């Protein structure tokens, strides 16, 4: 105890307050940083010396097949996510409904689609024709299932319905996070239940919903690659098709990885601005506004 404490008398304190302070030295941090930099340098060196034809990577980075695969990946991400969010909102509201049938259906939907692997769901949709050779309304019209549910439809349904089950829980959490007083105040100014949900509850629930849904958009970009098994021509499948022909496996995987990283980076930037928008009247934004007002005053 006496070794690390310095006994002082109150008379000394004024003099002590003027003394020079020697900052602590963090030797452990320096050692850890050096070790990690060493490992990184070794990795960079290994890749540089490794058998990777970087010109091939550059050559295929903007190849037509890669770009069309990229566009299919983006289209599928947008469509599946849109379907997932719509289903998520609908099933979240059904889940919270006083009607036991609606609630039961929502519970079943969430249970089924969260409880089975995505790959299995994709295969189920893709092979739906084995169960129902034709679909339609009897007597009015009917199509051959094979014509309707191709790789695109099967992927969209698989990813979208699966996403809806997860998003439903996120949306439900968001709605529950909004104080009940907000709903009462909305009722008191004469809003119907639907207007209250649309104007008051959902906009505030968004603050809670956006961050996880943003993460799910980013996962969705990568999840679309699963659709390569049912012949949907997204970027990974097209990269594979090319390397089956030219045997440049690693180079084409690097091309695909590069594009995924670019897309995800752009999305992360978008997510930042979206989160800022929906934090209206809350937390950091408020602190900044108040600071600005005080500076101005």
């Amino acid at each position, binding site marked *: 105890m006496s070794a690390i404490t310095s006994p002082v008398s109150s008379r000394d304190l004024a003099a002590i307050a003027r003394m020079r302070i020697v900052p602590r030295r963090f030797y452990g941090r320096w050692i850890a940083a050096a070790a990690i930099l060493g490992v990184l340098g070794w990795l960079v060196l290994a890749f540089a010396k490794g058998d990777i034809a970087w010109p091939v990577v550059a050559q295929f980075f903007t190849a037509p097949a890669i770009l069309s695969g990229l566009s299919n990946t983006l289209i599928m991400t947008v469509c599946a996510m849109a379907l997932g969010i719509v289903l998520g909102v609908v099933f979240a509201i059904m889940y919270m409904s006083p009607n036991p049938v609606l609630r039961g259906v929502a519970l079943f939907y969430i249970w089924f689609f969260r409880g089975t692997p995505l790959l299995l769901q994709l295969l189920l949709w893709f092979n739906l024709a084995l169960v129902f050779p034709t679909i339609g309304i009897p007597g009015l019209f009917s199509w051959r299932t094979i014509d309707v549910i191709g790789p695109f439809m099967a992927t969209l349904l698989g990813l979208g319905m699966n996403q809806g089950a997860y998003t439903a829980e996120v949306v439900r959490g968001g709605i529950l996070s909004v104080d009940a*007083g907000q709903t009462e105040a909305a009722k*008191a100014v*004469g*809003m119907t*239940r639907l207007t209250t949900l649309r104007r008051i509850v959902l906009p505030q629930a968004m603050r809670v919903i956006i961050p996880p849904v943003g993460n799910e958009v980013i996962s969705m970009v990568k999840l679309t690659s699963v659709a390569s098994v049912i012949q949907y021509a997204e970027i990974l499948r097209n990269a594979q098709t090319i390397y089956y022909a030219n045997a440049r496996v690693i180079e084409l995987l690097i091309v695909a990885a590069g594009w995924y990283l670019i897309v995800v980076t752009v999305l992360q930037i978008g997510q930042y601005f979206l989160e800022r928008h929906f934090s209206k009247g*809350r937390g950091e934004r*408020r602190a900044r506004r108040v600071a600005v007002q005080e500076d101005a005053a």
Partner: protein
Amino acid sequence: MSAVEKAAASDDAIVTIAHVSKFFGPLKALNNVSLSIQPGTVQCIIGPSGSGKSTLLRCINQLEKIDEGAISVDGALIGYRRVGETLHELTDAEIAQQRLSTGMVFQRFNLFNHMTALQNIIEGPLTVLRRPRKEIVAEAMALLERVGLADKRDSYPSELSGGQQQRVAIARALAMRPKLMLFDEPTSALDPELVGEVLNVMRDLAATGMTMIVVTHELGFAREVASDVVFMDKGEIVEQGPPQTVLVAPSQPRTRDFIAAVLK
């Protein structure tokens, strides 16, 4: 003469509450309560917590559903449509329509957190009454002026003090041009130094002739502004009369005990 007979005798009442009971599970929150309120008066309701006074207020604008009895507001039976000898429950939209005659101010303000003061005030007129924005913004600014907060039009609720939030909440309710204002312990969640500014706004409002039903613990305000005071305990009206009687010389021992406890 019982309260109901009185209510029946004065058909010009803006609110008539007849034999209303309300249960929360086994708890009887309201027990056969009858009360009628004349237009242009300020009805104060006092009583210990759990006495049912807030519940009674919430029944008037249908935030709570009554289990027995009936309530009429502005000449209309609330919650039901009468067809011969049967009552049919109203739809969500019809109940919303009925709520337009009442404005409500909550203990915890309940301003819409994602909207500025101005947006809070115009939200109802804009989305419910569907009135033109230009017109209602001008009106909303006049209301903000009236509650002394014109400079806070673009502030979010989180940037306002409790007293300021409650004044915006009063302006929000008034923007719907209600015939009746309900106040549910409007100053109970405020720091003591902020109570005065809210009571001042309410005092001004009473002076304009607005019908007000105020659940409050502010006995000074009740004595000064109330036309009539009701003391409730255990879901029942124990005593009713002019403030000089109920607050100064109550006849019931329960009222006396309560007032003594509040003033201590």
